């Protein structure tokens, strides 16, 4: 349904939605409590002639209760969420043997670098960046960069295998966002940020830039293709073959 | 002791309610609190940037002239003392002494600003500018020669001129306001042992500016 959370297509999409629903329940209860309470009071205690309000300055027990309950709830919620947070974004959260892809964001396009057969991404230097011949600034002197495949606005990922992206930004801050994967991470000039996810459902998705990055921000869009491992390997293979042919695309 | 001293330190105005500190003085202290946050932002950025900078910072004394600035620091400290002397003088009811010390303070502050302007001109001539190092300047050659770290000179210029510039601006404001008080109140002898709020308040500001400089001088020129 278009007005609810998008389909889940990554390993942690499920747990994030669980978190969302848990909070929805907590806040939902509070919401009903408060709003219904207000409505009841508004009706029940509306001014009527000859009636006088009950004169009180408060009740400590009551206040203790409605201070303690939220406090406890919030602490629990915090601890629970932090576990998930560390799993997703923690320093050492990236699974071993994850497939590496380089993501280079610039106004207003995405460039993806695939390691090629050697499985290693080549070194990149901002200084080498050239709009036409070398959009991501791959360093030709680095042997690892020889077989790298550079693709514009098309992200291909295998399913069932963790993928780690090395995010870099050329000019301003951009943000890598694939709703179905529930993954978002800013790409910040001057920083190289790692973000990982594991796609589960093969299919085509959309990658959006979710950080205002200039007048073209709205159209900074890329396609995401989640292949089965087999399809992905064949894709990578014939890409590599092509690359041998006419260098980077 | 404190209470007795506190009263002694407070000019005998009709006492106001609340903090038992008269409005002008309380207001100045509150203003200084905001100044702490303002300089906190500038100095904090400098610390963060320098801490995170790739490669080390230019060594003290290579770009900036420490000796002249040390003298400037000394000057500012002296002007702080003369300020507090002026305050003590009028507190004891000597308007003439007040005039003398206040004038000294103004002169001290003015010299500080003058020297800083001179220092700026000097630095710019050598090629040190807010954006870092000017092309083809003396410093540019030193960078090329490797005696200055190319990586951090940009940050150095940015932070140096912003911090010292705004401090200089504060000193200037202080000098102007003291000049104003000197002409409009000290000279006509309006200040008495009973009423010298203006002196105490401007004094607080002046000492704060001095205090900021003590920090700046250390972390910008010596570290």
């Amino acid at each position, binding site marked *: 349904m278009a007005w609810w959370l998008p389909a889940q297509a990554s390993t942690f999409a499920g747990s994030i939605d669980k978190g969302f629903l848990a*909070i929805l329940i907590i806040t939902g209860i509070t919401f009903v409590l408060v709003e219904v309470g207000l409505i009841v009071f508004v009706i029940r205690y509306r001014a009527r002639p000859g009636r006088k309000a*009950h004169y009180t300055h408060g009740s400590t027990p009551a206040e203790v209760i409605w201070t303690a309950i939220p406090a406890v709830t919030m602490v629990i919620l915090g601890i629970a969420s932090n576990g998930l947070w560390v799993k997703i974004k923690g320093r050492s959260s990236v699974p071993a043997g994850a497939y590496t892809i380089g993501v280079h964001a610039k106004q207003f396009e995405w460039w993806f670098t695939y390691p090629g057969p050697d499985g290693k991404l080549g070194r990149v230097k901002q200084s080498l960046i050239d709009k036409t011949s070398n959009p991501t600034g791959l360093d030709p002197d680095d042997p690892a960069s020889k077989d790298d495949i550079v693709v514009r606005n098309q992200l291909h990922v295998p399913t069932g295998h963790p993928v780690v992206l090395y995010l870099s930004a050329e000019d301003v801050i951009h943000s890598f966002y694939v709703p179905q994967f529930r993954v978002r991470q800013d790409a910040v000039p001057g920083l190289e940020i790692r973000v990982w996810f594991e796609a589960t459902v093969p299919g085509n998705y959309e990658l959006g830039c979710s950080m205002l990055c200039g007048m073209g921000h709205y159209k900074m869009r890329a396609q995401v293709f989640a292949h089965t491992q087999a399809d992905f390997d064949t894709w990578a293979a014939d890409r590599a073959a092509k690359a041998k042919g006419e260098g980077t695309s | 002791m404190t209470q007795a001293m506190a009263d002694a330190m407070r000019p005998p105005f009709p006492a106001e309610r609340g903090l038992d500190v008269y409005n002008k003085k309380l207001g100045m202290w509150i203003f200084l609190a905001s100044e702490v946050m303002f300089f906190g932002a500038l100095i904090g950025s400098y610390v963060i940037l320098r801490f995170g900078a790739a490669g080390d910072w230019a060594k003290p004394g290579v770009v900036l002239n420490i000796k002249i600035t040390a003298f400037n620091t000394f000057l500012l400290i002296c002007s702080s003392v003369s300020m507090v002397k002026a305050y003590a003088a009028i507190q004891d009811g000597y308007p003439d002494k007040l005039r003398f010390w206040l004038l000294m303070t103004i002169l001290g502050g003015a010299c500080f600003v003058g020297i800083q302007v001179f220092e700026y001109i000097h630095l710019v001539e050598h090629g040190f500018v807010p954006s870092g190092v000017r092309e083809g300047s003396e410093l540019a050659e030193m960078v090329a020669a490797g005696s200055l770290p190319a990586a951090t000179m940009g940050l150095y210029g940015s932070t140096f001129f912003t911090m010292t510039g705004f401090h200089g601006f504060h000193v200037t404001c202080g000098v102007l306001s003291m000049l104003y008080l000197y002409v409009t109140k000290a000279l006509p002898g309006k200040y008495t042992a009973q009423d010298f709020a203006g002196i105490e308040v401007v004094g607080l500001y002046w000492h704060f500016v001095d205090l900021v400089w003590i920090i700046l001088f250390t972390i910008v020129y010596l570290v």
Partner: protein
Amino acid sequence: MTTVAAASHTAHAHHDDRSFIKKYIFSTDHKIIGIQFLFLSLFFLLVGGFLAMQIRWQLGFPGKPMPGGSLLPETMAPGGVILPEYYIQLVTMHGTFMVFFAIMLLLVGVYANFLIPLKIGAHDMAFPRINMASFWSAFAAGGVMLASMYVPEGAARAGWTMYAPLSAREDLSGAALGQQLWSVSIILFGLSSVLGSLNYITTVINNRAPGMTWFRMPLSIWALFITAILGLLAVPVLAGAAIMLLFEQVLGTHFFDPAAGGQVLLWQHLFWFFGHPEVYILILPAMGIASDLIANGSRKPIFGYHSMVFAICGIAFLGWIVWGHHMFVSGMNPTLGSSFMVSTLLIAVPSAIKVFNWMGTMWRGNLRFHVPMLHGVGFVAMFTIGGLSGIFMAATPVDMFIHDTYFIVAHIHYVLFGGSLFAIFGAIVYWFPKMFGRMMNEGWGKVHFWLTMLFYNMTFFPMHNLGMAGHMRRLYDPNIYDFLKPLQPLNTFISISAFLLFGSQIIFFVNFWWSMFKGKKAPLNPWEDNGLEWTLPSPAPHGNWETPPTVYRGPYEFSVPGMSEDYLPQTKKLPTDREPAMTPAHGH
């Protein structure tokens, strides 16, 4: 001080011989300055509203020529069709005007100025001339910001959060002068609000009337006092950041320029270190005002007055250590993220105290639904929604999904419109008689409230769904994305509701102006309230009291058993009351 000042002020109050200019333009009277702020900020509220309407037009009917849009220059909307670069200017200026020049001025400019001296029994602010300077620098700041929309290449366009490097590099943003004017305006604004804050703090600490102890102050004054402290300490950081940004733009410094070792995240840390205290600057006074309105409307003492005060302080304190919740996915140190999450979640606790104590105040009350009361209750209902949506975003993993989506936009508007603005509408109606000596029309006031309530929820509630579906913010045309196409009907619905919402504000606009000249004359104490301000004629004379009033009790003594009326003014001396000590500030 009392006697001296009183004498001099008596003179004023009797034959006010100030020239028109001194009296109404360059006035040092806190009441006049408050009214000046009122006109200024309502004007900017209107401007912000107009900008919002253009935003909504583009989102509701993307690419269609906007009615009246052909009046706009080619560089903004050729043939009335909004351009992407104009759209982001709209969003940026909408946020900037609404946050800084509408809501902040309305609360801290108008009501801090107008209410503090009146409610604590002072003759005026501690520093009337500084107060005037504060207004005029805010005026200048607003002027500069407004002017920036009319420079050739247009206004600032990096969002109201002005993230560097986009905001710092004209080659990337496409605007040079517009961006610089934004920085200049914010620096001026910072000056204005520091001058204001130090005035408010000094006045509250030093100039309270005899008997007005700390814990006899109305919650509105407590909130405004704490808010002033937040402003005093937070705004200078913004000013410092804006100065660095300005230097980046004009002097070519490298604070935020990674190529020269600068740090992009530095701007975000500085901005949000100010930014989160800022949002509490935007809500605390509203909370205080709502407390006054609800107590009066319920004819009942505030439930748990002391804990309400401590809750205000608690929110203000926590507000300093949560700013990182805006930066969870910014590449910030994730461990820092964890601690920011916990501190953020904890803010729900003092907020809980406030919400439930408001309900406790209404419980077994004798509720009078005058217009201010309606807005007070509306405030509680709507702020709760906004606050609760904050919990979703506070939880880091969830925020990773909804960050920078319309879920955030919904949150913004529930707290700022449903929260702050409702309280402000209530305050305007409530103190209108004090300001202009006339009442605002009751019937139309109610119509305005109900229509606003309805259309406001129709406008902003669906935005939660947009956000959950992944609809990003600051998006010129969502239809670029296939997964957002199905949301277009919802967007159109929101836009239509937004137009109706704006339309219903016209009622308020007319009511406001009509009542000012034709409204029925205000009785001495129209709301039967206990506050000191109602012991004065409306409008109150320059200098307020000839001799400061003496205060015998707190402001919320409604429906005291054994009393004939259901309210008991703070100045009314009962046989049992002792004369207050002359220096109340030391304890109570």
